[in-house]
């Protein structure tokens, strides 16, 4: 959204890789963006899964990274939930319950947030540890930043959340 000065700013750290937690982050992000607030989401560690591209199971430079990325495979349409996952039954049921109530899916939330000007920042250090590259992430992603750049944004924000 244009004209964000004095409208406030929200910076969210998405550390968790579960669908329910990612949706919570995106509900707040899109609502804040609708209020003309500047919104930044810093994706770190398991949270990076929310903005991973589909496909590309084997990623990384060594066997440990490859193992981690195979076992931790996921993207916006394929994430577990933090409670009652029941080997994938939980996410299926939650998705259908949400679509009945016409709550957007995580994938739709990501598109909407991007269209509203929400900025997505993948964490450089987590990417290095996991052996992931910029091309492993969706096109909506902005620049890759480190902790200091995140803090510089957080310092300027009125609302800071760690999810």
């Amino acid at each position, binding site marked *: 959204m244009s004209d964000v000065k004095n409208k406030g700013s929200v910076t969210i750290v998405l550390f968790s890789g579960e669908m329910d937690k990612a949706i919570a982050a995106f509900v707040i992000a899109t609502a804040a963006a609708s209020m003309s607030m500047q919104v930044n989401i810093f994706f770190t560690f398991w949270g990076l899964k929310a903005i991973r591209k589909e496909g590309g199971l084997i990623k990384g430079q060594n066997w440990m990274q490859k193992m981690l990325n195979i076992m931790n495979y996921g993207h916006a349409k394929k994430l577990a939930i933090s409670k009652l996952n029941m080997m994938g039954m939980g996410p299926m049921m939650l998705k259908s319950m949400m679509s009945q109530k016409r709550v957007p899916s995580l994938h739709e939330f990501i598109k909407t947030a991007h269209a*509203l000007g929400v900025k997505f920042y993948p964490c450089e250090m987590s990417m290095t540890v996991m052996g992931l590259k910029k091309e492993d992430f969706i096109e909506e992603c902005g620049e890759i930043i480190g902790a200091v750049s995140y803090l510089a944004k957080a310092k300027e924000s009125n609302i800071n959340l760690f999810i």
Partner: protein
Amino acid sequence: MEFEIDKTLDARGLSCPMPSVKTALALEQMGVGEVLEVLTDDPVSKRDLPVWAESTGNKLLGIKEEEKTIKIYLRKA
């Protein structure tokens, strides 16, 4: 209520936070002083859209309820 409606946004069936998001997008396309009518059946939006208007500086002109549909009138500032 004495005003003319310039645009109607049908946000029925959508749940929080999409009515606010759609309202923001609709108002962005409109001129200052124009009136947007938002139709919603989401009880959360009945509370949230007036707060949204106050927070964004747009003016809430009124709220009407017709059966399940809540009509919210906003003037773009």
